[in-house]
Structures are given as structure tokens and as C-alpha cells.
């Protein structure tokens, strides 16, 4: 109705016509900008489209097809080869197990530490703070040798448990500080009234403070999720002698090493590896963006 009205009224009078041309002209620079950015954006998603296309081509076609995205005939066998022969099904399960447990561990331990450091005075608080801040940023390459050594002594070197513990024990100081900053600005009366209502230390944390910190939990969850899903150095070192413990990223490297010519199989493996996280990202996009943004805003 209203659209038709607009069209009719635009046709009716010259004045209206001029108005819409002016409007178009005013919008034009933005459309040009959008076109320019769009070309750039294509550069950003093309490799992914190309990879999915390559995963359905036959091995020879990958080399001859050049830029084309669509295969002549879809070869689903590439996927079965990557999934069962090369073990990517197993790698996917490993990655999910490692990522989920690491995220849970990190969120819990950082929330607890952040809460205590923000809201309690206790002997040794300063020491804990100084140690945390002094080690705010430690690259994996710096600590990896002793981490491997101690894991071996604990009998955890070639195991997923060892991998998870090492991943959740490294860095993450920023997450503690995010929780700390958030908890510190909550009013003290919250705890006081909860104490009057008879809530104990643990209940105050679990039923009042932690739910309040949901935005921080979302940020920490996403950052840890991304970091762990993508982790490479630690999983690589922890699965040297146990190929069945490889995660997706480590498996990918081994796959290329073992099958240096099987590019379509590689593309299928890469597609299997990337699909879950890309789907998750598209579904939860807003939270991803807010999570990353939350890190810089605070």
C-alpha cells in the first residue's frame, strides 16, 4: 500500500521526482564506498569459498580449475577420506572435548579468583596480584619446555587431560582481571543484605555474583573458546607420540605432511575443521563481536 503510494506520488509531481534524485545522489557516495569495501570483503571470504569448492573437486581438477569455485562433479569421497581414513572425525571429537573442558575450567577458576581478589581482603592478596600482573603476558614459546617436562613427570604428557590442564593453566590473567574489574564496581550492599538473609560465602558467589557477571562470562567464554579451538603449540607438543590425540589444527599439519599431493582431501579436511566454528560464529555473531569489544572497552 504505502510503497505503491510513494511510487505513484513520485510519478505524479516533478518536485517529488527531483527529491528522489537528490536523495539518490546523496546516497551515491555511500554506495560507492560499499562497492569498494565489498570488493575487499570478497578477498576476505573468497579463500573459504574456494576451499569448500576444492573439497568437492577431484584431485586433478584442483590444479587445473584455477579460480572457479564450482566443481564439475561433486566428489563426496574426499570427505569420507578425510573423515575416516585421515582421522578427522576423531580429531574433531578431541578438539571439542579439549575446548569445552578448558572453557569451563578457565571460566570457573577466573571467576572465583576475580571475585575473591575484588571483594575480599586477605593475607597474601598483594602477592597474588603482583605475580598475576608480572606474568600478564607470557607467550607459549617461553614456557613450553618446562610445561612439557613437568607434564611428563606427572604422567600427563601424552593425554588429553594434560593438554586441557596446560591450556587452562597458561595465561588467562586478562580474564581474571576482567572479572576483577567487574566485581569491584558492584555495590557492597549486595553482599551485606545476602549475609543478613543467611547466605554463605559460596551461595553469595554462585547465586548472586556469578549471575550478575554474565556479560563478563560471555566475553571470557568466547575469548577462551577462540583461543583454545585455535591452539596449536601445546596440542602439537602434547600429541607428538600419540596421533590419536591430535586436535584439528595439529591433524591438519600432519595430514599435509603425510599426503603432500592430496589437495582435495586436504580441502575436505579443512572444511570439516572449520565448519563447526563458522556455523557457531554465524549463529552467535553478535556475542562474538560484543565479546571482543568488551575486552577493549573495559
Amino acid at each position, binding site marked *: 500500500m504505502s510503497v505503491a503510494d510513494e511510487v505513484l506520488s513520485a510519478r505524479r509531481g516533478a518536485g517529488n521526482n527531483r527529491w528522489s534524485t537528490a536523495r539518490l545522489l546523496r546516497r551515491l557516495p555511500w554506495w560507492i564506498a560499499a562497492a569498494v569495501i565489498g570488493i575487499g570483503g570478497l578477498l*576476505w571470504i573468497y579463500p573459504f569459498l574456494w576451499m569448500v569448492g576444492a573439497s568437492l573437486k577431484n584431485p586433478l581438477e584442483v590444479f587445473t580449475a584455477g579460480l572457479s569455485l564450482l566443481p564439475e562433479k561433486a566428489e563426496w569421497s574426499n570427505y569420507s577420506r578425510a573423515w575416516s581414513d585421515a582421522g578427522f572425525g576423531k580429531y574433531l571429537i578431541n578438539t571439542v572435548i579439549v575446548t569445552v573442558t578448558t572453557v569451563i575450567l578457565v571460566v570457573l577458576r577466573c571467576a*572465583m579468583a576475580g571475585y575473591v581478589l575484588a571483594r575480599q581482603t586477605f593475607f597474601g592478596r598483594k602477592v597474588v596480584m603482583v605475580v598475576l600482573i608480572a606474568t600478564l603476558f607470557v607467550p607459549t614459546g*617461553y614456557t613450553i619446555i*618446562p610445561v612439557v617436562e613437568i607434564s611428563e613427570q606427572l604422567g600427563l604428557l601424552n593425554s588429553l587431560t594434560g593438554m586441557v*590442564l596446560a591450556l587452562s593453566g597458561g595465561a588467562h590473567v586478562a580474564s*581474571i582481571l576482567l572479572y576483577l574489574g567487574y566485581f569491584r564496581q558492584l555495590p557492597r550492599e549486595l553482599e551485606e543484605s545476602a549475609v543478613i538473609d543467611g547466605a554463605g560465602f559460596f551461595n553469595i558467589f554462585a547465586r548472586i555474583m556469578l549471575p550478575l557477571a554474565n556479560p563478563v562470562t560471555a566475553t571470557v567464554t568466547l575469548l577462551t573458546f577462540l583461543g583454545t*579451538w585455535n591452539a596449536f603449540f601445546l596440542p602439537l607438543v602434547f600429541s607428538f607420540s600419540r596421533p590419536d590425540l591430535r586436535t584439528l*589444527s595439529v591433524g591438519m599439519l600432519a595430514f599435509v605432511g603425510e599426503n603432500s599431493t592430496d589437495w582435495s582431501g586436504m580441502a575436505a579436511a579443512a572444511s570439516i575443521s572449520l565448519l563447526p566454528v563458522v556455523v557457531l560464529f554465524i549463529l552467535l555473531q553478535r556475542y562474538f563481536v560484543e565479546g571482543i569489544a568488551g*575486552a577493549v572497552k*573495559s
Partner: protein
Amino acid sequence: MAVTAVPEAPAERRTRRADRPPKGSRQGRNQLWVWLFLTPTVVLYGVYTVYPIIASYWYSFVEWNGFDADKTWVGLANYKAVLADPLFWNSFKITVLFMVAVVPLKVLLTLLLALVLNSPKLPLRTLFRTAFFLPVVTTTAIVGVVMQFVFDPASGPVNVVLRELGLVADGINFLGDPKTALWTVVGVYIWKWFGVTLIYWLAALQTVPDEVYEAAAIDGAGPWKLLHHITLPLLKPFAVIITLLTLESTLKVFDLMLTMTNGGPFYATEVVEIYIYRWAFAATVPQLGFASAAAVVFGLFVGLVGLLQLAGIRAVRKTRSDR
């Protein structure tokens, strides 16, 4: 991520606590809970971060191949060897060069794009945001492997385009040529992590209140004046933080380098972490003491970057409170 306030209990809160009557057993029980809550962090962080930092120093003074238990004390010999190794300095130089190349490019390009993407007048802005962010969520190691093919001299898409456009006759061996390998990795790295810095800038732009723009627009300021006199000055503190975050993250290029080039060709892309990895894990006879010495030297450099970061944040806080 590392920008959060360095906490110090405000004096006002401390006195309020002292004024309160002592709670006796409750206080005691609280202390127990406090340490119970800290246990996971103290244990995990202690075992996997604090201890390794200290142990690295100890390892750096011994000769040790990692296979047998005996470590021979060699004093400063490892350090002497590391500092005398031209390949260590090569890797150090490449690490710094990589930082210097990536940081300004990435920070400025993302700022430009964020300024445009921030305007509600731009069509399809959500779609663009998604497109630029997509590589961020994908696994670095896999990107590295896929990029090996994308830059393949014979049939990789990049060379196909260059040939079709008539820019080159034969394919360029981007990753196989020591002259181009590092710059190719720089490009891929910027491509991969572009989205994060973009989101940082967009978040920063969100903090500029609309009223300021409206008021200035009423006063007759055009888009350039708005940008020059309002947006950019207000972004200054964020610029410091974003630059430092970007700087810091370039130190973690290990995954991408290892999967794309493995430090080669001829050590042209060997950053310090790959150097450490090579001596500690990829060598037939690992030299863990030697690698630890390299790690400690690298750690000192990282510490320096960290200090720079703290100083930067201090400076930002000062300008904020001055306003």
C-alpha cells in the same frame, strides 16, 4: 584484553572494613573460602605458568638433551652460544621486523574501515563486518595450510589472477622465495586478524556520544571537521590501547609461521618462537638448555614490551582523568 584496570583496593573501602566490628568465626571461615576459591588458579597457574618461568632460568644454565635425566651445569655457556648464534639474531630481527611491518598497517587500515563502517548510512554494513571477522574465528594452523595452496606458484588462485592480468609470466613462488616469504606471511597475518582490530575500533567509536556529533553538526561542522576535531581526538586513548594489543598479539605468530613456511625458506621467516621450537622439539638431539636460554632472552624482550604496555595504559588513564 590486557587493558583492564590494575586493581588496588580503594582506600575508602579499606577504612569502611576496619570500622566494622570484628566478625570472629565468620571472618575465619571467610579466609578459608578465599583460599579455596584461589586454589584452582594458584595450582594451575603455578604449575603451568609461574613454575615454568622460573624453571626456564634454571634450564638455561644446564646442558640437557631431554632424553636422559642428567643435566650438567654449564653456567653461562648456553647464553654465550645463543648470543653468538647469527641465526638467533636473525630470528630476533624477523620477530621485530614482523611487528614493525604488521602493527602500523593493521592499526591504520582497520581504523579507516571502522570509520566508514561506523556510519549508519553505509549499506550492507553488518554483512561486511561478518566478512572481515570470518577469518578470525577460523583455526590459524588450517589457514596456514590452505594459504600454502592459495599462494602456490603453479596453480594457486593468487598466481592464476596475476597471470590472467598479465602482471607476471611465470608464477611467483611467494612462500618459497626468501625475499617474498616474510611479506606474504605479513599479508596473511593481517588478513587473518584484521577483524579483531576492526572490532576494537568499532567498540571505541561506540563510546563517542551521539550528542557531541549532533551539537557539532548544528554548529555547521562538515564531515571532515567532525572527524578531525571530534572523532580522532576522542579516539586517542583507544589508539594507544589498540596499538599495544596489536603489538602484543604479533608475538604469537608461531602457528601461522610454522604451518605456512615452517620458518623457511632459509630461515627467512623464522621468528624466535620457531627458533626455540626447532632446538627444543624438532631437532634430532634436542638442546633444551640452549633453547631455554633463547627463551629467557626472548622473555626479557617480551617483558620490555609488557612494561611499555603498562606505561601506555598509565598514560591513557592520566589523560582520561585530566579530562
